[in-house]
């Protein structure tokens, strides 16, 4: 056996445990789920497929179609609002806050990111409720006479999501901004660009990879999340993850839950395909 072969054998032995784990607890269950999604429920028994019944139902039953639409709408709105809010925040921290305070400013801006996800959604429920601080403050200030219904609406879901993803995006955009040589902005200004032109023509395009990476992450995490819409949005309009949990809980309909999960996966894959060329844009 040659030295190279021995080396390869050792390397394979090191990779094997992680690969086996991933195969056993990720690939196989996922394959099983896809197979299950082709079966259907008869009474309380799962009947193995393969058959397209679940997928036909998903794309014909208005409640499922609505779930897909609601999920996509919420996710897109959340992604756009989060990017628009986070970019100036990251820019101010990176460019306007003095160097020695930057690390602190950034840590503060993302501190609640590290609290429990469930607790964070709960605390928005606390704030946005009819008796919560927001409504009480607005009534106290004389802006409204009685509480406006925000809890258990899409608005509450969006606010809760935006809060989380603004922090995430601030992190990714900030790290993109500080990696840029300060000479880009200097060179542009030196050649006559105004402050606004420097941002629009040079800095913004240069942060596009960071923005797209963050936006893709936002999309993936947002469309697959169950907690935030369940706590803040309530049961008035259900998102895909809520529908999946509903299949599991009420009926124990594993095939249908699996089929909905496959659809969810497909949406994420589409989003990836759409943003892939931005994710690996060349940088100099």
């Amino acid at each position, binding site marked *: 056996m040659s030295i190279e072969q021995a080396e390869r054998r050792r390397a394979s032995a090191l990779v094997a445990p992680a690969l086996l784990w991933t195969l056993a607890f990720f690939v196989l269950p996922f394959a099983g789920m896809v197979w299950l999604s082709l079966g259907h429920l008869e009474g309380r028994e799962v009947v193995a497929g393969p058959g397209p019944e679940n997928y036909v139902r998903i794309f014909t039953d208005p409640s499922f179609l609505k779930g897909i639409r609601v999920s996509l709408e919420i996710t897109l709105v959340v992604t756009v609002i989060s990017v628009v809010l986070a970019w100036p925040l990251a820019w101010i921290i990176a460019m306007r806050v003095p160097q020695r305070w930057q690390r602190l400013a950034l840590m503060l801006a993302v501190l609640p990111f590290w609290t429990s996800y469930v607790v964070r959604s709960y605390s928005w429920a606390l704030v946005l409720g009819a008796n919560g601080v927001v409504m009480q403050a607005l009534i106290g200030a004389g802006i409204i006479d009685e509480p406006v219904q925000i809890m258990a609406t899409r608005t509450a879901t969006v606010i809760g999501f935006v809060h989380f993803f603004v922090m995430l995006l601030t992190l990714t955009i900030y790290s993109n901004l500080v990696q840029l040589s300060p000479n880009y902005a200097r060179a542009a200004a030196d*050649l*006559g660009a105004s402050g606004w032109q420097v941002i629009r023509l040079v800095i913004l*395009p240069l942060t596009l990879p960071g923005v797209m990476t963050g936006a893709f992450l936002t999309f993936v995490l947002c469309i697959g999340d169950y907690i935030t819409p369940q706590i803040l949005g309530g049961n008035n309009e259900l998102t895909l993850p809520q529908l999946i949990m509903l299949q599991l809980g009420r009926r124990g309909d594993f095939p249908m839950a699996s089929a909905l999960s496959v659809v969810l996966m497909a949406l994420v894959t589409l989003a990836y395909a759409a943003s892939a060329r931005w994710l690996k844009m060349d940088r100099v």
Partner: protein
Amino acid sequence: MTADVAVQSVRQTFNTFTALHRIDLEIAAGEFVVLLGPSGCGKTTLLSILGGFLTPTEGRVLIGGRDMTHVAPKDRPTTTMFQDYALFPHMSLRDNVAFGPRMRGSGRGDRNRRAEEMLALVGLADKAGRRPHELSGGQRQRVALARALAVDPDVLLLDEPLGALDLKLRRQMQEELKAIQRKVGTTFVHVTHDQEEAMAIADRIVVMNEGRIEDLGTPQKIYLEPRSLFSAGFMGEVNRIPVRPAGQGAESALGPLALTTDKPGTLCLRPENVGLKGSLALGPARLTDAAFFGTYHRCHFTPVAAPDMQIVAHLPLGDLPETGAEVALWGTNPMILEAA
């Protein structure tokens, strides 16, 4: 276009650190001036002040006779070529070079024509549609030059523009830089820590150290008649022998020397000015080792009168004594400089 530059009593402090101590400097229109010095000597700070990226703590900067001390970079008749080039990676070379004219309100046709003209000047006319990452280091450097020149500045400021290139390419780019400067006639102020580069391109060198101007003049003057020990040492290798006045001549560790000096100082001799012939007798010395350097032999001598001292000499080919042999050493072009 071109303009002269005057730096008047410029001082720059950062908190408690003084980067520049009251600098005065006059640069003529069309001159190629190199600011030379070790890192931390204040050369880049001075360049930033000329470019408008720093406002000096005290003093004034005049360009073409007008006070520019508080004028923003974009409103100055200067452009800066940055060390990392700062080419915009999301734009083609054409758009990079056309950026300055665009900011000055030039229409698409005009600015593209200008960009292509400038790219032709630096020999990259055929690559106008490429992106910066498709280029080699030397080509990027040329694009940066074209971009800085496209707005027709009076003064071009170059911050170690050749620092990232390998030695061979650097020598080639030095010649090109010099040729382009002659062609456009713009005043160039170039920062480097490489004394060979400075000698290769400068009309005039400004040697800086610890926030002060140590020396200035043509490369020849600074090499042959440096004003300070620092300047002598920075421009090239030098033997230093402390001397003090004694009677008609001078006294040193080598014994009495036929030199006139009225104060204690340091006798400086470049290695090529030490040999077996010359005008200044240095006394007997022993050759301890020698190495062949192609055009000369690099030799270490130990003076018989001062066995702790070592004198480096570059002897012409064919002149090499045996190792261990005792010879009479001579010097030419002696320089006596006061200790700083």
